[in-house]
């Protein structure tokens, strides 16, 4: 008995399934009998065509049309239908979007990032608009240098990003781990960098960058800049102040070495001015000789510490080693050199001050005397020439 009823149940279930399966397909096929036509348009001229093959291979390929287009029950359906509500399934994402910079659903429908609604693929699929290697291009439709960016006063960041080290890693090496837009900004819950909750708010940036660059962030947290930011002093630099946000360069590159000294100088003005008086700066002011010491070559880049801290590369005990990295044979006397000496400051550098004064006086007095001497001479000898040989215009006196 038991066996017989089991068989019966199985048969019924099978029969139901075989009937039901063509039914699901049937519903989609019914819609496609019109919508598969590539030229089909709605009343206002928008294409309402669906590529059946693409749709079936998409992540939503197993759904029926009516699962999303819930307003449509029968055929013929009304000309205007209510828009599809993605949040009926994707509630978490919709909650994230709410209050984000893209929170206005009318301006930023899901499809503006995820692409064609009937061809949405999982983000691990290279065909997806939000596949890591495709994200920058997707975001660039608005945040690129053309179109929307200008209209809405958005920063055109895509060209900066794509030529950065992250952009190269992504576009040239195809590295899935290369930072793309959403690695830093997040995906659905993107907040303005002015919002303290934002991943790109100044004090949150070390943590955001640290999600990949953990070692650097650990160094940074130890240094004076990291400590200041942690205490809420937002004048202190975070990663993006030195490296920029989007146009990040390889720090050993000539371009970065030459552009970033003035960045330190934008806060450390006095140090920058005295640095400029030195050979390090004069020689390194341009590309082509980038080896000369920049700020961080001596001070450290991320774990910047004052000279009073024994861990600092500019602590007196470490100077021979620090200078010795470039100057082979550096000794205790050599490191007494002052890389920020100010020859204009009599109190700080008296010897230098008086040497400069002496040299300037020498220069001024020699030149003044000889300029007067020469000018008088010129006038007198020309006068003499003309007086003696007026007929020849004074030639060859």
């Amino acid at each position, binding site marked *: 008995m038991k066996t017989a009823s089991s068989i019966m149940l199985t048969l019924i279930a099978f029969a139901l399934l075989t009937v039901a399966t063509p039914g699901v397909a049937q519903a989609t096929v019914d819609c496609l009998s019109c919508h598969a036509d590539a030229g089909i348009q709605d009343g206002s001229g928008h294409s309402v065509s669906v590529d059946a093959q693409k749709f079936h291979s998409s992540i939503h390929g197993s759904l029926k049309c009516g699962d999303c287009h819930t307003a449509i029950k029968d055929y013929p359906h009304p000309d205007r239908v209510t828009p599809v509500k993605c949040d009926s399934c994707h509630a978490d994402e919709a909650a994230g979007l709410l209050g984000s910079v893209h929170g206005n659903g009318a301006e930023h429908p899901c499809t503006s990032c995820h692409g064609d609604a009937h061809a949405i693929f999982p983000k691990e699929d290279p065909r997806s608009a939000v596949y890591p290697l495709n994200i920058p291009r997707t975001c660039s439709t608005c945040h690129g240098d053309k179109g929307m960016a200008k209209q809405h006063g958005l920063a055109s960041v895509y060209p900066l990003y794509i030529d950065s080290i992250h952009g190269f890693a992504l576009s040239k090496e195809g590295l899935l781990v290369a930072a793309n837009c959403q690695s830093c900004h997040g995906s659905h819950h993107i907040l303005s960098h002015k919002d303290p909750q934002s991943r790109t708010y100044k004090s949150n940036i070390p943590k955001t960058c640290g999600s990949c660059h953990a070692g650097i962030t650990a160094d940074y947290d130890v240094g004076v800049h990291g400590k200041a930011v942690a205490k809420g002093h937002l004048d202190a630099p975070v990663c993006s102040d030195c490296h920029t946000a989007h146009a990040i360069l390889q720090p050993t590159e000539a371009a970065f070495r030459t552009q970033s000294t003035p960045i330190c100088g934008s806060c450390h003005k006095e140090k920058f001015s005295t640095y400029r008086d030195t*050979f390090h700066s004069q020689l390194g002011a341009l590309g082509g000789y980038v080896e000369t010491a920049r700020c961080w070559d001596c001070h450290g880049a991320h774990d910047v510490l004052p000279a009073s801290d024994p861990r600092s590369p500019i602590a007196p005990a470490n100077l021979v080693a620090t200078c010795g990295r470039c100057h082979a044979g550096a000794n205790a006397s050599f490191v007494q*050199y002052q890389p920020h000496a100010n020859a204009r400051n009599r109190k700080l550098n008296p010897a230098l001050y008086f040497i400069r004064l002496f040299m300037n006086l020498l220069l001024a007095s020699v030149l003044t005397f000889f300029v007067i001497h020469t000018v008088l001479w010129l006038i007198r000898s020309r006068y003499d020439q003309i007086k003696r040989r007026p007929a020849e215009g004074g030639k060859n006196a």
Partner: protein
Amino acid sequence: MRFTRAQRTLHAVLFTTFLGLAGTGLPLRFSQSYWARRFASSVGGFGAILFFHKLCAVVLTLAFLYHVKDIFTRGLIHREKGVFWGSTSMMGNWKDVKDLFGHLRWFVGLGPKPQFERYAYWEKFDYWAVFWGMIVIGFSGYAMWFAPFFATFLPGWALNAVLVIHSEEGLLAILFIFSIHFVNTHLRPDSFPMDMVIFTGVESEEEFKTKRPEEYARLASQGKLEARISEKPAIWLVNFSRVVGFTAILIGLVLLILTLSAYLRE
């Protein structure tokens, strides 16, 4: 004949390397100025500039050492007269002081024109200015080049001082040569547009007599004028010298203008 081949060669080496040093030193001194950056990038960056600067410096140092050796060989070993003192020497003497004041009086019409000997006081000043400059700039330059070595016997602050000394003394040399020396020696009406004697070695007897009457009179009284007579320089030498000389003066004047503009803007 006024200058021997060796003297003319020395002057040629001197002004060639000096132009090289000035041309590569100025962009370093005024590294923030637009022309310095443009120039640097056009010749292959500051690495190239520094290389040429050092190259010229080494050549000039060798020329300087050769000159010093030559002076001492002639003066001490060959016992040549008039090297260290006397009317043909570069050493300053009482007559130079009198000539300077006499010359100044003549400028303003208060006295007769002084009668100059072989080397007039401003020529001696040029010589000793270059001599002193070479020691000062050379020493401070090598101190920067081989800083760790020099630091074994110099205090650390001296390494700061040498840059100040090097750049200020270099600036003085550049301003002096490209304005005072150019005008006094080449552009003044008596020699305008260029005194060719340093290139060809010879000048006309008339020019000699006008410019250095006392030397002329001395040679005449000693009966040595004949020995000084030399052949007229070959046309190619005169033309070649003109091209080289005018190029040097042109480069010098351009550098002078750039220097003054950058210096005044600082």
